């Protein structure tokens, strides 16, 4: 986020008269380019070039074994006409909504872990972080066992309270939420780490002053922690939104193709996978991917506009 002001400053620096100091700074800048070259090259080859290609192929019919023919905007027309696209989009927005729940959860846990005198903080931190570094496939499989309608632990526990056994991931009305819950479970640890670092950066004097004025823990949380954490929260919400809009692997693992709820849980990227890799419709899949990118870009822009209203930069 600070990239833009930095480049602007660098540009204005470059326009100044070439004093020796400027020359050496320009020299430093050139060295800097060399340092970012490996990353930049990787980005160009593996992200930027494929992106341009995807955009181009979205206007073609792509043969399953190579070769393509220009079809204009046919693919985009197909995408917008297809009801499954709208359904997948709806599902994806639900995932996004559920996924964002990880943020308040992580903030609360972070605030609790930052209490003075709490022992074993690093252990808790590690425990919360473990789900995030676990392979999504392993996460999906284990949760499928927990959710299993016949032998699952969840049904067993609910059974003690007289709740009927339920097929969580194959009932269309619960499947999205069952998967969403796993998403939240596996990402909370990541945001927790970020928020804990953010809270650490808040000067302790604020809390001490507030305490002297008689503010309780809740009051301190809402009037000091939350506002001063807002830049971190903003960063986390952008990342979280983008990630949950691109969600795929967990759904793919947890659902399987014969699940009656498969249409009710399919995400946009899941549909992309189906089109591109199963149904030989790479062109339409490229169009879909591009529209998703536009959507993500649009929502991210919106977030950047809205941040002025709620983010406090210290």
């Amino acid at each position, binding site marked *: 986020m600070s990239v833009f002001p930095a480049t602007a400053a660098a540009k204005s620096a470059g326009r100044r008269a070439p004093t020796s100091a400027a020359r050496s700074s320009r020299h430093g800048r050139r060295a800097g380019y060399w340092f970012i070259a490996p990353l930049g090259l990787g980005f160009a080859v593996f992200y930027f070039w494929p992106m341009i290609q995807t955009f181009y192929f979205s206007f073609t*019919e792509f*043969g*399953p*074994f*190579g070769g393509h023919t220009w079809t204009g905007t046919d693919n985009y027309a197909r995408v917008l006409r297809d009801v499954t696209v709208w359904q997948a989009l709806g599902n994806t927005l639900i995932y996004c909504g559920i996924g964002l729940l990880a943020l308040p959860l992580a903030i609360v846990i972070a605030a609790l872990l930052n209490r003075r005198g709490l022992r074993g903080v690093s252990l808790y931190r590690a425990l919360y972080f473990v789900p995030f570094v676990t*392979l*999504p*496939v392993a996460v999906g499989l284990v949760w*499928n066992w927990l*959710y*299993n*309608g*016949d*032998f*699952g632990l969840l049904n067993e526990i609910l059974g003690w309270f007289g709740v009927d056994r339920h*097929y969580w*991931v*194959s*009932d*269309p009305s619960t499947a999205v939420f069952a998967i969403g819950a796993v998403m939240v479970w596996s990402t909370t640890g990541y945001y927790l780490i970020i928020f804990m670092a953010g809270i650490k950066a808040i000067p302790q004097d604020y809390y001490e002053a507030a305490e002297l004025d008689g503010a309780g823990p809740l009051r301190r949380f809402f009037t000091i922690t939350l506002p001063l954490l807002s830049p971190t929260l903003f960063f986390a919400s952008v990342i979280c939104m983008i990630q949950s809009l691109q969600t*795929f*692997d967990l759904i*793919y693992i947890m659902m*399987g*193709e*014969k*699940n*009656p*709820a*498969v*249409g009710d849980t399919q995400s946009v990227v899941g549909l992309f996978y*189906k089109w591109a*890799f*199963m*149904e*030989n*419709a790479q062109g339409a899949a490229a169009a879909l991917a591009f529209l998703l990118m536009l959507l993500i870009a649009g929502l991210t822009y919106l977030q950047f506009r809205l941040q002025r209203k709620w983010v406090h930069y210290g």
Partner: protein
Amino acid sequence: MRRRTLLCSGLAAASAPVLAACSDEGGGAGGGGRTTLSYGMWDPAQVPGMQQIIAAFEKEHPDISVRIELTPWASYWTTLKTSMRGGTAPDVFWMNAVNFQLYAAHDVLEPLSEHIARDATPVDRHPEQLVRLYAYDGTQYGLPKDFDTVGLWYNKALFDKAGIKYPDTTWTWDDLRDAAAELTNPRERVHGFCSEMHRQFVLYPAMFAAGGYVLRDGHSGFGDERSVAGLRFLTDMIDRGWSPPQSAMVESTARVRFWSEKAAMVHDLSAMAGQMYAVPALKDHGGVTVLPKGRERTTVIHGLANVISAKSDKKAAAWKFVHFMAGRRAADIQAKSGVTISSYAGTQDAWLKSMPEFDLKHFLDMEKHATPYPSSKNTAVWENLQYPLLGAAFSGKGGIEGAARTLGEQMDRALKEERDS
């Protein structure tokens, strides 16, 4: 991104032991004018059998060696398509009916008709329907290596407990329904039958047995009255509680239920015999017979074929291998390994004898009545329509007639698009 690395590492992990095994067998004779063919396949259970065949082939052709490239089923087709594009596809590889026409139509397979005529490959020793599955526009592109039919597997202990006679070749759908009702025991969570939403094992056989069809002259059979009757026969058993709903079979499939003796009867492939045999309880009291007769007695036949990549630069050697694989010796070895039924007529005895406790000959008997697995040029497109549309009806929510009709309409649209493209 994460997913892709995962696929690759899984692939590497799966193929590592195989590659190691192959290089052992090669005995360091690599290089020096020797042609090395790569052979793409997906089933780890068949690797030992294939290696025996390869050893026999290499003895006959000392100048050729064959290396197995094992890719897990889940990524086999995507990997193959990508490697075709990149020019790194295996020289010879397994093909199935679902994908065959797509490959043949795009000229990425080597036509075999001339080779067959020249070397007098014994094509007529393989089931005709199966051979025809791998011909496109009058040209043969693949030679079958094995075949699969679907049979009715049953648990004798559960039948004894319910005090009813075992299924046999005289059974009709009425017998199946009656037995399913008797065998169902909710207290022990045992179901009489599994109306699993599985096209090859359950949906298609039921539609065919009811006198319906899936694909005929480029048109969908899902709207056909008899096809619907077949599907209704299945959903009815779910509605009555004699079969678990599909929502429950997502998590524990029919096969798993049968293995754990929670299902008394299931449809399953002949190729699964080996795995059934490995379950001690089923080796002891599992049984198999032909599918019960609906309006007609039938089953679905499908088999894999060996094909040669049109981009291979070792086509002469590749053809020698495919020719060998379609012959008697390879079939004998394959049959003895007990994994699948070899498609070569008269070599199936070894397979039958490999599991004497099971009456496997029923699978062979059914070949005569079998209907080939339906496919078109872009089969996956209309196959992908089936489960999402039929899912609710197979989960006890009713409405199979409407769902089948909608499916028929959407499938017809997909088939029309396929013709137009």
